């Protein structure tokens, strides 16, 4: 091992990349004019290409693998630092919140498609089920608002069960068809339903926890921090939980059973693995995460309408997973950040975003089907064996 490699396999191997990441995102998110945005995107792309060519990515992955806790801490620190940096900036805090809500939903999708191989074309609909559940619970009942989060997840999970159970006995792509139909019908259903506010949508009451109103800014001396900061902190907590659960799931006998079901149903059955049981487990857990994220996201938005949860959004979630590397949760994080912030900041492509995503996904499938960060063989105890 060269000296440089030896240095970067230690703590510095995590801290330095994390610092660069923070510096870049801080700059990118504050950049105003389109040229500096374009330049920072190009420099990122150039840097990443160089990093891949020079093997830096592998050094980083090694460093992360042996110092997982340190890397986790680095990522959380980056998010917290960005929140502090943008404490009064509604727009950027909202973007960060969106990233974290989407990432949580895609982690759910990853359990379904990445592990168990259950194709779900209606991830955004389950996200929406969570959101609408929260909206109705907060306006129509006296339940503690915090309960709306797990209930949003639970209703999404239950809806998923009702959809999937009838087609579990069949083999083939019925799950894909059923979820596709659900994604399309969900939109229509919301549009015509008065109870759900029709096409205009409905307001969502803000979250309050023990008297703390999430729609109020935080007063700090003379300054007033954006109310989004509260949502971001809670979303960060939710994302950390979802991330930790999916990671532990992958590194367990359950994760193994899900992988077995995905790769070979017949062989799995011959070793006593109950295919339907694991498929429904993965689908339910995934939808719970999507619904939970959707409930919190809806509260942050304060107003939701059917246009937030379309089939196109479901495809967006799927493309995040494909881009990041199916089955790799680190890839999910990277891809969510890119897919959410790039079109948001780089207005020129805003209009063509779906076109660009489709092109990217196609290119990915042709040239790098494993995604940006391909999944590695399972390491049950975390550190590579």
């Amino acid at each position, binding site marked *: 091992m060269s000296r440089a490699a030896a240095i970067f396999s230690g703590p510095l191997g995590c801290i330095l990349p994390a610092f660069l990441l923070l510096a870049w995102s801080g700059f990118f998110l504050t950049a105003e004019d389109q040229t500096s945005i374009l330049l920072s995107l190009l420099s990122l792309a150039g840097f990443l290409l160089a990093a891949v060519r020079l093997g830096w990515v592998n050094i980083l992955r090694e460093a992360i693998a042996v110092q997982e806790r340190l890397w986790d801490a680095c990522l959380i620190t980056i998010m917290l630092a960005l929140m502090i940096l943008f404490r009064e900036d509604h727009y950027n805090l909202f973007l960060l919140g969106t990233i974290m809500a989407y990432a949580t939903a895609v982690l759910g999708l990853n359990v379904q498609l990445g592990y168990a191989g259950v194709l779900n074309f209606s991830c955004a609909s389950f996200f929406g089920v969570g959101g609408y559940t929260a909206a109705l619970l907060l306006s129509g009942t006296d339940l503690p608002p915090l309960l709306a989060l797990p209930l949003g997840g639970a209703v999404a999970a239950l809806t998923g069960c009702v959809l999937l159970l009838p087609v579990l006995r069949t083999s083939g792509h019925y799950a894909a068809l059923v979820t596709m139909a659900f994604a399309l019908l969900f939109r229509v259903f919301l549009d015509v339903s008065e109870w759900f506010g029709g096409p205009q949508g409905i307001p969502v009451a803000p979250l309050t926890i023990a008297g703390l109103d999430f729609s109020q800014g935080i007063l700090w001396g003379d300054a007033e921090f954006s109310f989004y900061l509260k949502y971001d902190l809670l979303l960060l907590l939710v994302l950390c939980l979802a991330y930790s659960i999916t990671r532990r799931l992958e590194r367990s006998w359950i994760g193994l059973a899900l992988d*077995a079901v995905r790769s070979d149903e017949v062989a799995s059955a*011959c070793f006593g693995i109950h295919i339907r049981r694991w498929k429904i487990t993965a689908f339910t857990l995934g939808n719970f995460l999507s619904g939970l994220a959707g409930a919190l996201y809806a509260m942050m938005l304060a107003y939701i309408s059917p246009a937030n949860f379309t089939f196109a959004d479901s495809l967006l979630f799927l493309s995040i997973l494909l881009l990041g590397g199916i089955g790799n949760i680190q890839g999910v994080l990277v891809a969510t950040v890119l897919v959410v912030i790039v079109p948001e900041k780089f207005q020129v492509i805003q209009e063509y975003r779906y076109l660009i995503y489709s092109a990217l996904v196609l290119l990915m499938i042709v040239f790098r089907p494993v995604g940006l960060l391909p999944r590695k063989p*399972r*390491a049950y105890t975390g550190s590579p064996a």
Partner: protein
Amino acid sequence: MNPLLICTGLTMRFGGLTALDNLYLEAREGEVLGLVGPNGSGKTTLFNVLTGIYRPSAGKITFAGENITSGTPQEIHRRGIARTFQRSRLCLDLSVFDNIMIGNHTALRLDFFHNILRRRAFCRDYELWRDKAAEMLRALNPSLVSRMFRPVGDLSMIDRRRVENSRALVRRPRHPRLHDPSAGMTHDETRQLMDEITASRMGGDRLTVILIEHEMEVIRRSTSHCVVLNFGRKLCEGDYAGVVADPRVQEAYLGKELE
């Protein structure tokens, strides 16, 4: 000794094609039963029916005195029947250890509490199985131990077969270990693998094995009793010498001589 496995009148039709035709077959406890027959004679289909992948069109399968005819693959596995596949159905992108643990599924603790929340206990549990798998692999090919966490897709054909064998053996099945190996190996490799299979039987409990093999030499060395299938029917049975000497068997393999 009583037969452990008995099939009576076993018939499997695919549309108009009869892959198994009123088959009677028994496997005695502790024997290695050789199953031979030309291509398409129904050997693999028999395995698929025995393991519950296909539901037979007619007939009955009794295992250890119990009727298992319309059991699901999972139920049949639970009774102690494990198998390998003709085209080794390993999960190529999963590691060697993962593949072996798939065979161990029914012995693993699968509750969320143990797997997600009590990680310390889980890790101890994992380390036990890891050592057990390493021990199995060491007996087959020591170099496999260091590659235990590499994808199976990186291995040579014979090592894949070894992994598949370990997957079928890890649960210490009570019986018929069904083997359908052959494809993709040289003669020497096949012979070596068969020796490993027979050797694995010597370890204490005498497993019953049903072996499908095209190499007659392997059948001669490894099996105590042979059944010859042709067009889904039993052509004849007996010891190796008796079976190869049978003119009907020669005819089935070589075709009828022109008169």
